[in-house]
């Protein structure tokens, strides 16, 4: 089926641009109808909103939607914009895809685009008293000095509704009313794994509603990237999700390499794939440790950290870093593999396979762990897709969302590995997916480690890298889901707009759905098994 013709059928005014990737440019008045048709029609069924990017095109403000179908695997990029820069208003798609809700709040926060019919139009990362919208090109930074007053948490939110007779009204929606018992979990709470704050409304010990507050460590990485050259932007990706820095950097390098059309040597592909998998084991070991500690099993916590240390030593020998590794560069990797790398990885692989049994003995089988994880925090498959909750969370809900299988990159098409999918959708399934993935990652590494081809570890690049004009997108399977990089280039040495699809943002958005009706004590187990990383959410 030709999607292009299909879109023209629904919206005859649509235009197409093919710079980098196929983008359908749709007038803002038709976007909502088109989006709804694309999702609901049987033969298109774009049920997964991969990414929603706010844009400042210069003379207009707009949004770019990356859609994908989990049924057919096809993709399309939609773009819409409004010329009214003083009062930009676009239609919300948050009732079509649940994941759009939090992403549209981000677009409002950074670009000031108000989404019509969005139930909760508040800032998400920045303070409510922030002046201006920082990712707009005409933003003046001097309007926002360091504030010395506390931010007041509002219990009310705005909604811009469009009535049937075509008039806009501002409606006030209540987040928490005066009668509700609301407590703060975080921003400094060990079980939120970083500075994330949940305002939790309780009825006894049952959770009625959770409202996530992000942005405590927001650094504006996307804005910073706009003034950095491409090699310089690489340094920031390691600081997004510090437990998948190889993968995030791989995604950015891949996107840039794809855009300038560099052929990457086979050896680099092998090295990158092995490093990605080592990083995944590293991340899953830390996940295991932290989950165990959250549930009170401190002994198991140390087991995970003990073995993670071995991976960090391997990393340190080759890349020179333990947490921030700085290894992938545009056109290759920073340095060749350390002479001991192959030996160390093989030793680690056989050690890890043996030691995993101990992990299961001490924690997985444990009656307390079982009772605290099983049937707790169930996320249905439909919700997982609608929120865009990829990675271990999505696969635990029965959604085969592994980017390594769906859109193979590196040398994942040359290795055989199983995609771990559980159907229960509860915390225990989310835990087991990651534990089983450690074994699968070891399988991948074992298949590759003896066959690393000889050759260059880096392609010589020009001193100044410019990307031809266009829109580019690349995604990888990071340790906790599909991590995507979107670059809009105007042909300069730095990007016009760079957007990172955070893997954690949909997870945080889904917390309310997962926990509602559950007990407050289960929030810890649910948060632990969702395995979000805050620096990546906040960016």
């Amino acid at each position, binding site marked *: 089926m030709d999607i292009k013709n299909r879109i023209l059928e629904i919206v005859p005014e649509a235009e197409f641009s093919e710079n980098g990737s196929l983008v359908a440019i749709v007038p803002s008045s038709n976007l909502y109808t088109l989006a709804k048709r694309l999702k609901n029609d049987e033969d298109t069924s774009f049920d997964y909103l991969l990414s929603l990017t706010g844009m400042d095109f210069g003379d207009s403000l707009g949004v770019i939607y990356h859609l994908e179908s989990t049924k057919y695997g096809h993709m399309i990029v939609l773009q819409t914009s409004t010329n009214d820069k003083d009062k930009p208003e676009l239609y919300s798609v948050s009732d079509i895809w649940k994941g759009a809700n939090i992403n549209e709040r981000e677009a409002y926060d950074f670009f000031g685009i108000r989404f019509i019919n969005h139930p909760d139009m508040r800032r998400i990362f920045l303070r409510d008293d922030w002046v201006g919208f920082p990712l707009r090109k005409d933003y003046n930074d001097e309007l926002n000095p360091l504030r010395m007053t506390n931010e007041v948490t509002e219990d009310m939110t705005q909604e811009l509704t469009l009535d049937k007779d075509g008039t806009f009204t501002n409606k006030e929606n209540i987040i928490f009313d005066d009668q509700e018992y609301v407590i703060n979990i975080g921003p400094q709470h060990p079980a939120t794994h970083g500075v994330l704050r949940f305002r939790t409304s309780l009825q006894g010990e049952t959770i009625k509603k959770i409202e996530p507050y992000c942005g405590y460590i927001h650094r504006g990485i996307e804005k910073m990237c706009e003034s*950095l*050259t491409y*090699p*310089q932007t*690489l*340094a*920031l990706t390691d*600081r997004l999700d510090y437990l998948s820095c190889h993968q995030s950097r791989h995604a950015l390098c891949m996107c840039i390499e794809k855009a300038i059309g560099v052929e990457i040597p086979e050896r680099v592909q092998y090295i990158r794939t092995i490093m990605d998998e080592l990083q995944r084991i590293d991340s899953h070991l830390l996940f295991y440790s932290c989950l165990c500690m959250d549930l009170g099993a401190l*002994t198991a916590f140390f*087991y995970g950290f*003990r073995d993670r*240390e071995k991976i960090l030593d391997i990393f*340190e*020998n*080759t*890349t*020179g*870093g333990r947490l*921030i590794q*700085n290894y992938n*560069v545009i056109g290759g990797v*920073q*340095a060749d593999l*350390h002479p001991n790398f192959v030996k160390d990885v093989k030793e680690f692989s056989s050690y890890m396979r043996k030691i995993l049994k*101990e992990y299961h*003995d*001490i*924690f997985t*089988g*444990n*009656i307390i762990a*079982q009772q605290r994880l099983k049937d707790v925090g169930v996320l249905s498959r439909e919700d997982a897709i609608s929120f865009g909750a990829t990675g271990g969370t999505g696969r635990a809900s029965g959604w085969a969302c592994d980017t390594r299988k769906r859109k193979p990159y590196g040398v994942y098409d040359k290795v055989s590995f199983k995609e771990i999918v559980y159907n229960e959708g509860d915390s225990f399934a989310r835990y087991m997916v990651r534990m089983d993935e450690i074994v699968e990652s070891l399988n991948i590494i074992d298949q590759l480690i003896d066959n690393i081809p000889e050759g260059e570890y880096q392609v010589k690049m020009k*001193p100044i890298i410019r990307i031809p004009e266009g829109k580019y997108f690349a995604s990888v399977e990071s340790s906790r889901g599909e991590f995507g990089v979107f670059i809009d280039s105007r042909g300069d040495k730095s990007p016009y707009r760079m957007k990172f699809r955070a893997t954690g943002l949909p997870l945080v958005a889904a917390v309310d759905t997962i926990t509602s009706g559950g007990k407050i004590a289960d929030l810890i187990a649910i948060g632990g098994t969702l395995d979000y990383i805050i620096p990546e959410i906040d960016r």
Partner: protein
Amino acid sequence: MNSFFKYFHSLFSGILTLLIGMKTSMKVFLRKKVTEKYPENRDTLKISDRFRGTLVMPHDTENHHKCVACGICQISCPNGSIVVHFDTVVSEDGKKSKVLTNYEYDLGNCMYCQLCVNTCPHDAICFDNSFEHAVFSREKLIKKLNREGSTLVKK
């Protein structure tokens, strides 16, 4: 009767899982220790050669460095950790050249992205292994990398 049986079954199987866990932790307890005693083990501590500790400018035995003060490192640094101060010297035949006076490096600002080392055309700077950076004030983190009285190496 059935629920009675179920109750005791889950009770004893639960206790069994706890015993298995206990056995595992005792097994690990009796193994060789893997922890390291830092800072007592400073002499035997092994750090990878590629570890990025501090940016340094290697000098040879005659106090020569390789920096020509071209400033490429300063341009490629993403957050301005490097400032190259130089004098412009006119030689006898009228050629202008830059002479390094102070290679200022702010360790507190550096994010170890290695772009300065990668782009340096003369391999004048590199990272060394030292990692004990703690000081009492931020000013001490601003370092001068070229030594006192050092000059450019003669080709």
